[in-house]
């Protein structure tokens, strides 16, 4: 026989000024099944909780209803109090008479009646409550970091330094990401590789980090604390256990005219190659699509030259399976390359390049040894025009967002050019200057005031070639719309930052959300910027949205801290508000028919199948089973199930129906 206790909170005057709380308490006390009813000024306070605990003990209550604020506020508080009093916390329910009554209605009898109605429905629900116990899920204390750029590197080091194992997967032959391609970084003009490579080496040498380069994530299954990941180790054609990185092979490789990805197509590399001198690991791979041996069966020079016999043409892609407890995606960004600016001749005119290509020209290890030269004829340009917002903030081109980093790197590029060519002229066509970080605005002012970069506020309508020059047709809107035509030697476009080209397919493998621009979705734009909606998967860096290095590093450390928090105990505790497929005695075993419609609609892939077997081991039927570790308690499966074999703990069909009936039978 139920003995329910009802506790009506005044919430100061928040509730009591509008609802007649004494009356509600009095009437509630007369409901069938209610053994005790009281009202009090602040239920969530210590004395309030003590009141509840003592009442439970004294009146031998089997369940309680606390009529107060939203359960999102204090459900946890009151459930803990119930537990302290010795009853299962899930016999405690909250009736929201603040957000749903006193805060939205004026003081009146109807309002008080509504409060009472809500209390009554919760009383009826509690009568149907059952004891529930938190679900414990084991945690594998290994993290997977996808992506070896600066964000991935930072996250990996933070997690590894906290004493946990890290597996890093990077699809290119070396880690380092885009930061390794930069010449100098803003706002300090630090040499990018100089600050990055020590970190790269640290990753390679860290005892807790297992680095897989030239590898990709093939598939992911499982749930937080227990992910099963299949990694594809692409065939390098070089045995790294034998290779010493001496470089004899790539020095002698006869295929020297392959456009170099690291140099953004501005230079060439060989078929067997290491992407850049500071690559980690500094061992080569063979580009089978361009290697003479793989194309025609001829050459084989590298295998003859290699002093340790490390070349292996017969290597095949291998797959390894690993178990991890958390995943950090740090797959970074790309610059939009496609021919989407026909009015600027991008992709058509050799001397119209993008920001990353300029970085490679400015870089001492680049194709021009750090001299800014025109790709068309190698001459040093005397006039360079920089075009900001080339693709960003542009509804017509399909990218409405701001790419955030271009204002800063454009200023940087203009400054680098002026430092190397004092007599040269640099022009920047801009719309706005976004330099909000620390020391950022000062950096841009330096470009304008010290390095005499000419900033023109207006956009460029068109660029075309004439007599080996580029005619840039722009405008100065701050000079009454005066047209500005410049005969430039080179044009650098600050093209839009877009998501990594494989972002979408990775997101689908991980079951994480992404927006229409394929940037991964954070769980909450303000308060949960480094987690996704999928438990156990974190975000770091530009894969979430365009950002600069300091922000990527901060975000990486933040996501690492989430992982470390996850690993801080060997078990994960989860709320038992999960769906359960019923089990009955033989010969039925369960009313589930195995139609698996629930599996189809579950947004969290939390429904598995289970084979019901007889004693001899014969399979009698295949039915659904909920993985309590993944289930988020949304109830979609419950709505879908045709014969109601699946039910939601804490919000069962029975509980819900009794609430509805209580409301109807007033």
């Amino acid at each position, binding site marked *: 026989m139920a003995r329910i206790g009802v506790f009506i909170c005044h919430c100061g005057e928040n509730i009591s000024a509008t609802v007649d709380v004494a009356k509600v308490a009095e009437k509630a006390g007369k409901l069938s099944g209610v053994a005790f009813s009281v009202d009090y000024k602040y239920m969530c306070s210590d004395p309030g909780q003590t009141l509840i605990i003592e009442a439970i003990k004294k009146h031998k209550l089997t369940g309680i209803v606390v009529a107060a604020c939203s359960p999102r506020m204090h459900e946890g508080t009151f459930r803990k109090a119930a537990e302290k009093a010795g009853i299962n916390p899930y016999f405690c329910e909250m009736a929201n008479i603040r957000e749903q009554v006193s805060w939205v209605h004026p003081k009146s009898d109807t309002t008080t009646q509504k409060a009472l109605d809500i209390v009554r429905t919760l009383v009826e629900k509690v009568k149907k409550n059952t004891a529930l116990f938190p679900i414990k899920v084991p945690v594998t204390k290994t993290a997977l970091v996808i992506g070896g750029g600066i964000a991935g590197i930072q996250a990996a080091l933070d997690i590894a330094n906290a004493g946990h194992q890290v597996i890093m997967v990077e699809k290119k032959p070396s880690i380092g990401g885009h930061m390794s391609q930069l010449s100098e970084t803003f706002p300090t003009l630090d040499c990018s590789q100089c600050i990055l490579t020590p970190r790269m080496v640290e990753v390679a040498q860290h005892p807790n980090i297992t680095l897989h380069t030239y590898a990709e994530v093939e598939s992911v299954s499982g749930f937080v604390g227990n992910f099963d990941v299949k990694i594809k180790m692409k065939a390098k054609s070089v045995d790294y256990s034998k290779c010493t990185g001496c470089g004899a092979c790539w020095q002698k490789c006869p295929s020297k005219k392959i456009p170099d990805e690291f140099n953004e197509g501005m230079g060439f590399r060989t078929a067997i190659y290491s992407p850049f001198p500071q690559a980690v690991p500094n061992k080569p791979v063979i580009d089978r699509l361009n290697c003479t041996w793989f194309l025609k069966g001829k050459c084989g020079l590298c295998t003859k030259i290699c002093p340790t016999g490390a070349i292996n043409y017969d290597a095949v892609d291998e797959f390894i399976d690993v178990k991890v407890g958390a995943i950090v995606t740090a797959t970074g960004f790309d610059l939009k390359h496609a021919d989407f600016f026909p009015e600027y001749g991008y992709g058509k005119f050799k001397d119209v390049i993008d920001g990353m290509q300029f970085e490679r020209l400015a870089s001492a290890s680049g194709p021009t040894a750090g001299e800014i030269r025109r790709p068309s004829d190698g001459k040093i340009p005397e006039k360079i025009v920089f075009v900001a917002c080339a693709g960003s903030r*542009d*509804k*017509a081109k399909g990218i409405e967002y701001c790419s955030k980093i271009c204002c800063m790197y454009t200023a940087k590029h203009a400054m680098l050019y002026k430092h190397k060519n004092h007599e040269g002229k640099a022009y920047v066509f801009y719309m706005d200057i976004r330099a909000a970080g620390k020391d950022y605005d000062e950096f841009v002012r330096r470009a304008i005031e010290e390095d005499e970069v000419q900033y023109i506020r207006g956009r460029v309508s068109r660029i075309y070639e004439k007599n080996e020059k580029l005619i840039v047709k722009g405008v100065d*809107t701050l000079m009454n*719309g005066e047209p500005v035509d410049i005969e430039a030697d080179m044009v650098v476009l600050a093209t839009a930052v877009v998501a990594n080209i494989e972002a979408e397919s990775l997101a689908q493998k991980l079951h994480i959300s992404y927006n229409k621009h394929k940037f991964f979705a954070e769980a909450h734009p303000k308060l949960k910027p480094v987690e996704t909606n999928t438990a156990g998967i974190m975000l770091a860096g530009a894969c979430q949205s365009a950002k600069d290095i300091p922000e990527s590093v901060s975000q990486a450390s933040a996501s690492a801290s989430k992982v470390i928090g996850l690993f801080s105990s060997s078990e994960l505790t989860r709320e038992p508000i999960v769906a359960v497929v019923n089990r009955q005695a033989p010969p039925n075993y369960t009313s589930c028919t195995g139609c698996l419609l629930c599996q189809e609609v579950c947004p969290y892939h939390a429904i598995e199948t289970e084979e019901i077997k007889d004693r001899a081991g014969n399979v009698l039927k295949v039915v659904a089973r909920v993985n309590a570790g993944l289930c988020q308690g949304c109830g979609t499966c419950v709505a879908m199930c045709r014969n109601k074999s699946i039910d939601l703990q804490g919000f069962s069909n029975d509980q819900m129906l009794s609430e509805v009936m209580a409301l109807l039978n007033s």
Partner: protein
Amino acid sequence: MHETTHHHADTLKSHVEEATGVILSHCYQCGKCTAGCPLNEEMDIMPNQILRILQAEMPGYENKVLSSLSIWLCLACDTCYSRCPQEVLLSKVMDYLRQESIRQNKVNPKAKDILSFHKAFLDSIKLNGKLHEVGLTIDYKLRSLNMLQDVQLVPSMMSKGKLAIFPHQVQNTKEIAKIFKRISENKGDQQ
């Protein structure tokens, strides 16, 4: 035109938006239209400035736009629209401003000849249903008083068979005149 929460003040901006469906606040004054306009060296007010004046809704400035030469020089080549990052249909706004400047009798004196040509053209259509070049020329010269303009072309055009003395006409020219009449009765030229 999509639903907006714009209130309808009695400004030129609101009239333009209502008549053309173009939302002027989309323009963020980047100036790309002005940069690419083939007439930018001849105009008195630049295309992006015309939009800015409309956006600003400051009293007294609307006249500048309606009495500008720019709106008459605009050739509706749509170079602006084809490159505008916010897809603002500027040529439609220009059409409206031209018509409004006639309605408010604010046509720039330097645009007189341009307007005369358009009017002479439409006169010819109203009369014949098709363009009669000779008729157009006579009408234009009478309006503009540029009597000697292009006279040197007449002999060569005639010998090349490019000038018809008599107009080509549609079968029932009254039908065309009726179309013009119905439109002006419906105040179709006033939007």
